[in-house]
């Protein structure tokens, strides 16, 4: 049974990582908890459903448009709402509250536009997974794990090599200093939202295919994604992916021994323990409060 548990954990971890990486990118740069990231994922998944199942666009086109839609949605949230609050130097608790309000708003909008009934994107047929060293896994699940790992590598290079990536890390490290050397923080915030939400688009596509769609999917994914991000180290994006895989493993191996009702309890207990003993997470940089 061990290989199958391993595969289940990898799949779960990969899905959480897709959610956590986007969220963590936005958090590390803009320094606030953007809970409405879940709504971006949910809305993008429904947008893919609208393009592919309703309008009947080709799957390839629908995917590209969905990713564009996701980054546009994230960018709009920043420009229309968060930017005003930043200009008024609103404190973190207000930004957090605003992200909750945005989450409620978008989830109700999805409910109004698409109704409450369960939707599935019928692109991938349900078929018995094939054997892979004694564990059963479907092609889509392999794609999810692969994309998640590739994403980790791409993100790593994006942050290390590209101009925007370095600027983001500079702003994340010290906004004032970054501005002194000519990086416009506002500009970088927009980029953080664009890239972070694009990742949310990718997550929406893969999760939308693997699971069915419901209006509240954003909140559920977001809670696990942010748990993974914190365990991995809220400040570091690769950490978020690592933390998400750890969460996937802990949950699945955990309920192998404990009654399965405790799946969420295990996840949150680990989160709590990490926040107490190593609050900066595995890869996080310990911000010693001066």
């Amino acid at each position, binding site marked *: 049974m061990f290989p199958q548990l391993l595969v289940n954990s990898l799949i779960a971890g990969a899905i959480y990582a897709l959610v956590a990486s986007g969220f963590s990118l936005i958090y590390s740069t803009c320094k606030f908890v953007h809970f409405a990231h879940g709504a971006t994922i949910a809305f993008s998944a429904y947008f893919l459903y609208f393009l592919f199942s309703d309008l009947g666009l080709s799957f390839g086109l629908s995917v590209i448009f969905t990713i564009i839609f996701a980054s546009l949605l994230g960018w709009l949230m920043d420009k229309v709402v968060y930017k005003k609050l930043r200009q008024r130097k609103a404190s973190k608790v207000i930004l957090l509250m605003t992200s909750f309000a945005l989450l409620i708003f978008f989830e109700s909008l999805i409910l109004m536009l698409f109704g409450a009934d369960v939707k599935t994107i019928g692109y991938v047929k*349900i078929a018995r997974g094939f054997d892979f060293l004694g564990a059963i896994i479907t092609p889509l699940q392999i794609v999810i794990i692969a994309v998640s790992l590739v994403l980790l590598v791409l993100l790593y290079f994006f942050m290390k090599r590209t101009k925007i990536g370095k600027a983001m890390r500079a702003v994340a490290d010290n906004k004032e200093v970054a501005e002194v050397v000519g990086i416009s923080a506002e500009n970088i915030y927009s980029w953080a939202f664009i890239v972070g939400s694009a990742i949310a688009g990718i997550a929406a596509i893969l999760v939308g295919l693997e*699971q069915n769609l419901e209006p509240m*999917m954003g909140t559920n994914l977001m809670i696990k994604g942010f748990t993974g991000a914190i365990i991995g180290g809220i400040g570091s994006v690769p950490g978020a992916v690592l933390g998400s895989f750890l969460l996937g493993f802990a949950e699945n191996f955990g309920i192998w021994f404990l009654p399965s009702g405790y799946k969420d309890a295990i996840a949150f207990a680990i989160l709590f323990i990490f926040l107490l003993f190593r609050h900066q997470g595995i890869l996080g940089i310990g911000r010693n409060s001066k």
Partner: protein
Amino acid sequence: MSKTLQIIIGIIIIAIIVALVFVFGTGKTTEGLVKIGVLAPLTGEASQWGVPPKEGIELALELIKNRVDNKKVEVIYEDTQCDPAKGVSAVQKLINIDEVDAIIGAVCSSVTLAIAPIVEKSEVPLISPASTSPKISDAGDYVFRVVPSDALRGEVFADYIKNDVGLNKVAILYINNEGGAGNKDSFKKRFEELGGKIVAIESYAQGTKDVKTQLMKIKNQNIQAIVIVSYPADSVIILKQAQELGLSLPLYFQTEALEDPFVLEAAGESANGVIYILQADPSGREVEKFENMFEEKFNRAPALYAAEGFDAFNLIIKAIKECKAETDLSSCIKDELYTIKNYQGVSGTITFDGKGDVLKPMAIKKIIENGKKKVLMIK
């Protein structure tokens, strides 16, 4: 006080005044008006089984062209979000402001249990289209429901599996919410009474999309079948992941979820051979008429509990007709409802017992192949 502050406070006050005027405006002409309140989770996680009953009611209202005898029928919808506190707020408003004559709802047992004492004290009859918790049976004289309690469903299904199919060792996978736990408890009690053995019990949280490890734990045991209690969305996930894991065990769903067209469409062949239990359909004619009319209005098939919403509304209308010029319409409706025997509803033949519960024959159905179903037994 700054300008913007005054604007905000102004908006709130105007809104409240408008609301009260709106209320008083309609309040007066109650003679020629029958008011029915509807409580259902229209948003939030439970909206997937809160919206269908509302649609069933809308269809029924349209069919009677908003009138009964010489009175106009008005339906007022309230969103409970499956939250007891919001349910109490909504029912207080329906009873004390709108002065409704009857209530259809709530959907979630938790809300029904919270509002039961209030409707009991205000003597307003309530018919729940979906609350299945056994506790509701003795929640009050004014509390009715058109769905069998989990207790009944669990017993019938346990009898069927133990005696008719003849299985002794099963596992249970249930959704960890009020409906799921209620069904699990009643099945387990009855099945063990009959000498069967529950080898493993696994659960999953509402809203989870990954039950692979739970299925694996069950696959690991030596059992003859899995009894599953789930809602529409989760049923698709369970069927999909069971197929993906190559689970060959026969699946028995103690839920009407498989009757939901979305589930069959999404699950595809992974649903073939699955057996589930639901309230027995009356003669086909009744159900087909309802489904065609529903399709015409909403251009999609009726989802779970839409039929129950439809029946609940028509039962109240039937009671109102009998009551004619009664002064205290609410109590009269209550008394009339207790006289309902073998009512041919679209959700099954309905007879109310002394506690307002419904005695409905249960049907065991088997899904032959992509959507085609066969009734195996009526118990």
